């Protein structure tokens, strides 16, 4: 082999080796960048997912609190109107009692007779505020007769004033003090508002429930 042929072969092999070195380096660099991109994408996905989860939980909890507060507002509004019904009813009853007209006097008589009918025994003390006690005292004879007729036994009624009764109405006590019948207007209003709560809610809010 001639000298120039050997030189040429050395040159060719060198070029080939250099080309391979550079080509390999290029592949390695591309691989490194591709791996980094994949890792970056994975990190982004993971972080996005974690952030979404965190914000989602935060949002759900805040919305639940908000919903609870808004329901509370709703309940408070319903309570306001329910209380207003009782207040207005009390005002109406108070006006009726203060007017002390025939309608109220008739009501007082019925309250006494109802009390007597619901208590055992035949001797009763009727307590009322001074205004109502005066009316009852005037009607005591008639009331005793009516009660006697209802109970089919001679009924004895007595009356005394008290300052404990606010709106009006009566409290009947059996003579031996073992029983009493609270027929005051305060007690009746309280009982009616309790018994009719569902009905009143339905009239006021269009539903029988106290919540939404």
């Amino acid at each position, binding site marked *: 082999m001639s000298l120039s042929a050997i030189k040429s072969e050395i040159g060719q092999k060198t070029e080939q080796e250099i080309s391979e070195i550079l080509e390999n380096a290029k592949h390695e660099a591309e691989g490194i960048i591709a*791996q980094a991109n994949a890792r970056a994408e994975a990190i982004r996905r993971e972080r996005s997912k974690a952030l979404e989860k965190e914000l989602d939980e935060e*949002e759900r909890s805040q919305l639940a609190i908000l919903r609870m507060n808004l329901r509370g507002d709703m309940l408070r509004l319903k309570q306001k109107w329910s209380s207003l019904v009782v207040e207005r009813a009390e005002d109406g009853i108070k006006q009726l009692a203060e007017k002390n007209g025939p309608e109220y006097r008739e009501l007082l008589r019925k309250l006494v007779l109802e009390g007597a009918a619901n208590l055992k025994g035949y001797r009763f003390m009727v307590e009322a505020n001074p205004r109502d006690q005066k009316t009852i005292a005037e009607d005591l004879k008639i009331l005793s007769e009516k009660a006697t007729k209802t109970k089919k036994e001679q009924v004895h009624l007595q009356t005394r004033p008290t300052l404990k009764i606010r709106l009006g109405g009566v409290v009947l006590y059996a003579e031996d003090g073992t029983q009493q019948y609270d027929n005051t207007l305060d007690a009746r209003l309280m009982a009616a508002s309790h018994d009719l709560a569902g009905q009143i809610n339905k009239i006021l809010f269009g539903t029988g429930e106290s919540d939404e």
Partner: protein
Amino acid sequence: MDIKELQELIEEERSAGEKVRRAKEVAQEAVTKAREQADKIVHASEVDVHLQELRQAMKAEFAKKQADLENEYKEKLAILEEYSRNNLEKAVERLVQEALKVKV
């Protein structure tokens, strides 16, 4: 082959070796640069602007849901208020009637 030719060949081999060494340096430099760039790519993903955008988007979505819910209840409260006002007297009348209903 004489001495002179042998020396030429030795020089040719040395020169070829030098070329390969330089190529290796260039290759190493390319790989090193790629590693540096890779570090930057990964680091950038850790302080990603996309996450801030996502947070803002979700916050905006939440604010909308919150406002929708508040409006929904505001409307419910207004309806309830009006309904109650319109039926107050009826309810009062029913309660008074019940309170004064005496069974004799």
